[in-house]
């Protein structure tokens, strides 16, 4: 019974926590919503058709904000496609609407409906249509219906969460491998800055700055990532050949890389990058999912297969579980450790490039403290800091747990200081879980002949 419970906590503990957090923030942000943009257009169009049949005349009134003009354009397109009479469209301020109404009134044709957004429906212009424009008949105001829906669960918000955590989650893949071998990598935060600055400088100095081609940008990013990989290889060498503890080696690399990043950036941020550079960080791929999030999901899939199905993954677990037993079973311990540190550094380099793309610049201030968030994600995801245990998807869940807490607290207007306190407590709680189940097997494994 006890074992079953601990097993459950081990494998699925954090996903429960994540689900509870999502449920909590959903309830906490449950408010009145009205669709905007395309969704609003589709809804208003179907209302119009349902209410007035196939033939009607309509005036579309939208403000000049981007989601409102999008509403107007989409609605116009939908109505055109459905074969109703071509609608008149107004985008702008109340006086523009009045002008349009006047013009329509002059033609003398009755107007069936006026399609509005939530904002324009409240304009005073429409208050007394009957008196002002009697020739228009009795047009009805149609606006998007309101409904109750949590802010947290809006699809834009969910994509936003994923996009914000992508960099941390990607780096956490490498960190999970390193921690599973029983090590730690503190240098990843600095490597983000280093890689971002390197990539930005390569593009600015060698690929033609704002006029850089896709090929040039790709090569610059790959070069930055490879250089990070070399640094990871150096750290791995220090750890495996000289036996210096990983904590010390990567702490040193953290300082070195941060310093190098500042030197390379000359204390400024490098922003001479082409607009197309944001493709990686902000561009949308299939199903409106940002490219960075897609890349994260693909990398997690690959990492999961490596860790659970491949020899390399088995070796990583073995080295962390019992290094001496692994060595005596013929595991190439040094090569395995080298791989882990190089992978971690390469992924940190990739994270830096993505961040540079998201922010369309490279700066040495990027990634500050990220190593701690990355480690937190790994640990919250159930990977044991003593090595040998942990799951890739656990780390993804851990990263999302952190992101959901931050996002949810932002939505519920918790101030940032309080957020830190809460986040700290959650991390501690997760490690406590880890300890509890670790004690479980220590107790069952420690009795015996000595």
């Amino acid at each position, binding site marked *: 019974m006890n074992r079953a419970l601990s097993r459950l906590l081990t494998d699925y503990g954090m996903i429960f926590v994540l689900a509870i957090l999502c449920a909590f923030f959903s309830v906490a942000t449950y408010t009145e919503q009205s669709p905007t943009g395309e969704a609003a257009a589709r809804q208003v169009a179907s209302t119009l058709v349902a209410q007035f049949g196939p033939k009607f005349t309509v005036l579309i009134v939208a403000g000049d904000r981007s989601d409102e003009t999008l509403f107007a354009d989409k609605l116009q397109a939908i109505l055109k496609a459905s074969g109703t009479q071509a609608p008149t469209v107004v985008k702008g301020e109340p006086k523009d609407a009045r002008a349009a109404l006047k013009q329509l009134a002059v033609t003398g044709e009755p107007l069936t409906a006026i399609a509005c957004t939530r904002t324009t429906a409240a304009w005073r212009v429409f208050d007394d249509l009957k008196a002002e424009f009697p020739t228009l008949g009795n047009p009805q105001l149609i606006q998007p219906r309101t409904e109750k829906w949590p802010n947290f669960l809006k699809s834009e918000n969910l994509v936003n969460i994923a996009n914000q955590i992508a960099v941390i989650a990607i780096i956490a893949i490498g960190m999970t491998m390193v921690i599973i071998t029983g090590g730690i990598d503190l240098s990843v935060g600095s490597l983000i800055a280093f890689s971002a600055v390197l990539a930005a400088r390569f593009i600015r100095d060698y690929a033609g700055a704002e006029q850089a081609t896709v090929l040039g940008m790709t090569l610059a990013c790959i070069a930055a990532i490879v250089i990070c990989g070399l640094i990871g290889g150096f750290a791995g060498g220090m750890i495996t050949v000289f036996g210096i503890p990983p904590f010390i080696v990567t702490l040193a690399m953290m300082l070195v890389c941060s310093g190098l990043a500042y030197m390379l950036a000359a204390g400024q941020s490098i922003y001479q990058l082409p607009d197309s550079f944001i493709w990686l960080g902000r561009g949308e791929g299939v199903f409106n999912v940002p490219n960075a999030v897609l890349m994260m999901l693909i990398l997690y899939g690959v990492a999961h297969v490596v860790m659970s*199905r*491949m*020899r*390399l993954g*088995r*070796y990583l*677990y*073995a080295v962390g*579980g*019992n290094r*001496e*037993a*692994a*060595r*005596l*079973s*013929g*595991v*190439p311990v040094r090569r395995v450790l080298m791989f882990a540190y190089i992978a971690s550094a390469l992924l940190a380099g990739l994270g830096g490039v993505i961040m540079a793309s998201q922010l369309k610049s490279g700066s040495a201030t990027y990634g500050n403290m990220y190593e701690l968030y990355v480690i937190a994600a790994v640990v919250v995801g159930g990977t044991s800091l003593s090595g*040998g*245990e942990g799951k890739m998807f656990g780390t993804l869940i851990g990263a999302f747990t952190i992101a959901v807490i931050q996002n949810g607290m932002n939505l519920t207007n918790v101030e940032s200081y309080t957020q830190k306190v809460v986040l700290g407590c959650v991390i501690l709680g997760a490690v406590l879980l880890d300890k509890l189940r670790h004690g479980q*097997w220590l107790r*069952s*494994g420690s*009795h*015996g*002949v*000595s």
Partner: protein
Amino acid sequence: MIASAPPSPILAAPLLEMRGIVKSFPGVQALRGVSLSLHAGEVLALLGENGAGKSTLMKVLGGAFRADAGSIAIAGATQHFASPQDSRRAGVAVIYQEFNLVPGLTACENIFLGQEPTRAGFIAQSQERRQAAELFKRLGVEVDLDAPCHRLTTAQQQLVEIAKALAFQARIIVMDEPSAALTDHEVGRLFAIIEELKRQGIGIVYISHRLDEIFAIANRVTVLRDGQNVGERPMGQVTRQELIELMVGRELSDEFPKRSTSIGPVRLEVSGLRRGRAVRDVSFSVRRGEILALTGLVGAGRTETVRLIFGADPREAGHIRLDGRSLAIRSPRDAIAAGIGLLTEDRKLQGLMLGHSVRENFGLPNLDWLCRGGFVRLRRERDEFARYISSLRIKVFSGEQRAGTLSGGNQQKVVLAKWLARNCDVLIFDEPTRGIDVGAKYEIYLLINELAAQGKSIIMISSELPEVLGMADRILVLHEGRVTGEIADARAATQEQIMKLAIA
């Protein structure tokens, strides 16, 4: 501050009286009612083969283990030791082979660790130094009080341990193999100190395999065998021969399966193996289908020798040839690739990943042939392991059970399975039946015989002489890193013969 026991010990109640001590571990009964008495101002030698129960008995005395039954009385007062602190408070100091010193602290700090003299909450350093100096003076030696302990020689560290015992007024000092790491000169000094302690009325339990030393220093000897008392003699009334017979006197029974042997040509040949003090010059060969036993006392260099063959430690010199080919083994990986397997002595630390499933443990050395294109063929792995579960009768719920939850015998079978699956030409078993119950032992013996019958070469390290005699075709005895004897026909050998070579 200084213990001042009455120097007329014989008439008073003995300083220490242990009666009927019983202690068992899962699967092994280590002590089956052992009794021991020690008088003030006396050196009692505790003698026995490896695994006879000496260390367990001393751990019971030191409060590290709790006895299942039996009583301990110190100067007539019954004691109940629940922890090492209790035992220490009652005046017992145990100096283990591995010293209990904090390497970074100075001699002085180590002596008073946990009982620092304080003044107003601060450590009274001058008092500490004065007392430490006094203790060393009492021992008649000089040790640098301010040097961190890791800088001291082994002999000096031992003196710090003794001073530490005196600092808390120990009346009983247990020394476990105190001379093992000392030079002859240092041993002489140690004996002078022991004489001094005797004179001060302290009772000493002296554990050693070196009979010469026992004859030189002890007043009385108690011999244990298989967790039982087999004899107690005043030193003046016993001979070497008698002691050896007492130690080994176990009857060979049919606890070893019979087998027919057909020994082929030489397969593995090692020459001039050398590494530090542990392995000084070892050469031997093993033939096809042969079981070669490496025996000797703990610390003779047996494990160290096979670790060199397996590439687990770098060797300073020596050649390894397999089927006439010279092998360049630099790591266990090389050895495994050449067809050598090692089942380590310590399963928990070196043989298994306790937190991982038995299936993963099984697969680890076999991943080269269980993988295709870097992917582990999980079904193949499961099926292969399932075969061994049934053929070795491993008691597990499933292959996913964690290795740490298995009994010693079943853990050993998992280790066996992982090496059997590799189909090695040479298999090295280091204490294959340690901590395993009798039934499982027999099964493991059967398996070793079967492997030999298949033409594999087996090297078996064992401290249990009956096991050596019952299993081996040929016996090699090691002592202090050298081969001190070879018994070509193990069937005709006796335990006394081996013990003489081992004690050298």
